[in-house]
């Protein structure tokens, strides 16, 4: 009840320390149970549980992320996401309606003239991405001090759109510079207490490491099995470059992620995908066999499906089972395992600079997350 007023102690001047290793302490079984239970609840609630599942996943990942021996914490809640989503819907529905009406007007003059409207939605999606990041960041706590963000979602959005044009015009060549510019904007407006963030990664470095992939990409699109390798390489290079560019005040991050470190994860997901599809295929065959056996043998082919209610129901069950199990696979490998693997590669230099940071920053609303959900641009 009573909290004694605290006298601010003199700021200690720690000697330069060796870099500290970031680590992930999460239990894999626990995360699997969380994801599996969440997938089941998503099914039961027709998807509404997604707000709480996203929150549970973040709480698990954040609270098992240890930097200099202290774990982070995620203080967002599912209810906030739900409310943000409902608010976003209240704003998006009239916009969708206006989009529809303007689209009709535009199409009268020239076919597919509604392209600028698609662009407007893209810009809105970028705005949502920025605001969603702000929500997540203000719910991220480490050592009793929150991260926070200022800056403007729209200022970010037009930068993203202009850079997007440049990337398209150069067939993807400008992508590293786009990422660098956008990260600079985001990090410049990110804070940990009173420590300001900064992004020092350069497009040039990223390009130097990844240009080979850019050359190979057209071949990989033709030769399917090469694509996951390429993508995994690209993601690993991107993570490493991104993490190594992050600064908060005097604190410097460095990542030593090997370029091949993520290949296994992507292939495991693909393997599970084929395995699950195969299992569902067998399930469908058995269902069809049982039902034709019972129903006199006249039901065959996809046309019979629409007239056979039990078969339809069993098909839907099989399909949902496939989607839900793949969701669990993706969350375990591409969220938890990827998070852990990337985190293990991070070294934090001069953590002493964050030893006595003054708390600052306000909570941001979850509206941005709601937009991101409504526009299907949601990230982590």
């Amino acid at each position, binding site marked *: *009840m*009573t*909290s*004694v007023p*605290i006298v601010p*102690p003199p700021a200690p001047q720690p000697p330069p320390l060796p870099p500290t290793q970031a680590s992930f*302490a*999460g239990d894999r079984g626990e995360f699997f149970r969380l994801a599996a239970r969440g997938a089941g*609840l998503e099914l*039961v*609630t*027709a*998807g*509404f*549980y*997604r707000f*709480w599942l996203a929150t*549970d996943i973040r*709480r698990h990942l*954040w*609270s*098992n992320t*240890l930097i200099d021996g*202290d*774990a982070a*914490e*995620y*203080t967002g809640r*599912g209810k906030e996401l739900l409310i943000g989503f409902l608010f976003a819907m209240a704003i998006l*529905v009239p916009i969708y309606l206006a989009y*529809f009406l303007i689209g*009709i*007007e535009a*199409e*009268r003059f*020239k*076919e*597919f003239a509604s392209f600028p409207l698609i662009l407007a939605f893209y810009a809105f999606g970028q705005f949502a991405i920025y605001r969603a990041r702000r929500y997540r960041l203000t719910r991220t*706590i*480490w*050592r*009793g*001090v929150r991260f926070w963000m200022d800056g403007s979602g729209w200022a970010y959005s037009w930068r993203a759109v202009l850079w997007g044009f440049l990337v398209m015009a150069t067939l993807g060549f400008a992508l590293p510079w786009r990422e660098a510019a956008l990260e600079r904007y985001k990090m410049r407006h990110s804070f*940990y*207490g009173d420590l300001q963030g900064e992004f020092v990664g350069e497009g040039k470095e990223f390009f130097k490491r990844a240009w080979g992939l850019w050359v190979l990409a057209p071949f990989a699109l033709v030769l399917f099995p090469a694509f996951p390798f390429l993508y995994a390489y690209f993601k690993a290079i991107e993570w490493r470059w991104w993490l190594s560019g992050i600064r908060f005040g005097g604190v410097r991050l460095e990542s030593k992620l090997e370029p091949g470190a993520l290949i296994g994860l992507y292939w495991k997901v693909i393997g599970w995908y084929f395995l699950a599809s195969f299992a569902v295929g067998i399930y469908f065959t058995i269902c069809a066999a049982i039902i034709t056996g019972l129903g006199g043998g006249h039901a065959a082919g996809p*046309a*019979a499906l629409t007239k056979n209610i039990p078969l339809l129901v069993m098909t839907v069950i099989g*399909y*949902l089972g496939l*989607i839900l199990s*793949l969701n669990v696979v*993706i969350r375990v490998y591409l969220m938890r395992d990827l998070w852990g693997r990337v985190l293990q590669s991070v070294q934090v230099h001069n953590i002493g600079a*964050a*030893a*006595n*940071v*003054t*708390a600052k920053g306000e909570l941001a609303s979850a509206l941005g997350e709601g937009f991101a959900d409504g526009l*299907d641009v*949601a990230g982590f």
Partner: protein
Amino acid sequence: MSIFESGVSYQNNPPTVYFDGTSSRRRLVTLAFSDALEISEDGALPARWAYEDIRQADSPAGTLRLSCLSAPPLARVEIRNTALATELTSRCTRLGENRTDGRAVAKIVGWSLAAVVSIVVVVLFAIPLAADRLAPLVPQAFERRVGEASDVQIKAIFGNRVCTNAAGQAAYTKLLTLLRGAAGLDLAPVQSSVLDTPVPNAFALPGGKVYLFNGLLAKAQNPDEIAGVLAHELGHLKHRDNMRGLIYNGGTSFLIGLLFGDVTGSSALIFASRTLVTASHSREAEEGADTFAIDVMHKLGRSPKPMGELLFRVTGKEGDSNLSILASHPLTEDRLKRMTAEDHPPSGPPLLTDREWAALKGTCGGAAKK
């Protein structure tokens, strides 16, 4: 136990970590249990937390992390000693109150099911009702604009191959004018045309434009067959099915999309459930248009049976066919049966002369290709 209640701190506790919520300084403190949790640092007492205000915060395994309602919201005490954690847990009765337990999950499930029921009711009853009531209220001018917008797209998709043969066009216009008269459509007549595409279909755009595809014309054997199909399309216009469908499809896809949210692969799921829901709705509209066509043909003293025969010729017995355009229609064999039942010997004059019929058939140049 009594020793703790007297307020004595036990000195040989492993140091506990304390963050005061105003700075990131990691403070090593000693905990003491009196009538409240006393957090002391080097003999000073920076904080006292009442037991009933203490809540558990997320932490990795092996650490008990606490927050306090009456302290700064981000102040944390981290206990890494099991004995101490057990001791504290036994005193704080409301430790787990802000966690998502079984009851909270049950509440989420309950409310979600209520939302699902409400959305299903809206999709099944409210939206069809709204579509029926709103469609007649859509201004004619707006409907025409929708038609013009889709017209531009259709021409782009089918390569803008409008058949311009004058005699054929004249025959087509005559046929449509006859049908419009019998149908009692109050729409201003709009330039309609035959499009040179092998797709066997015909459709009416909002605003009154009726397109006939050469593919259908090629399969027709007499004017009554085409007249029936065109009358069917005019029926859609008369009933304003386009507008109704627009409102209905927009509403259901939005709501069903809301329902499934971001469950991966949801677009397929949305598509499937929407197809199921809207199929029955559109079948109803098709039956209405068929009724209308039968009516118009009777008014003109012609039989609707040829239309059924033409459709049957196009689709064959259904199940063998997977023409997507016709997928939401009633089964062709049922339609043929219905139109055969309405068959009367012709009492009116033929709708087109032989010459006009030949001109219409040949309007796209290559005469009848089949």
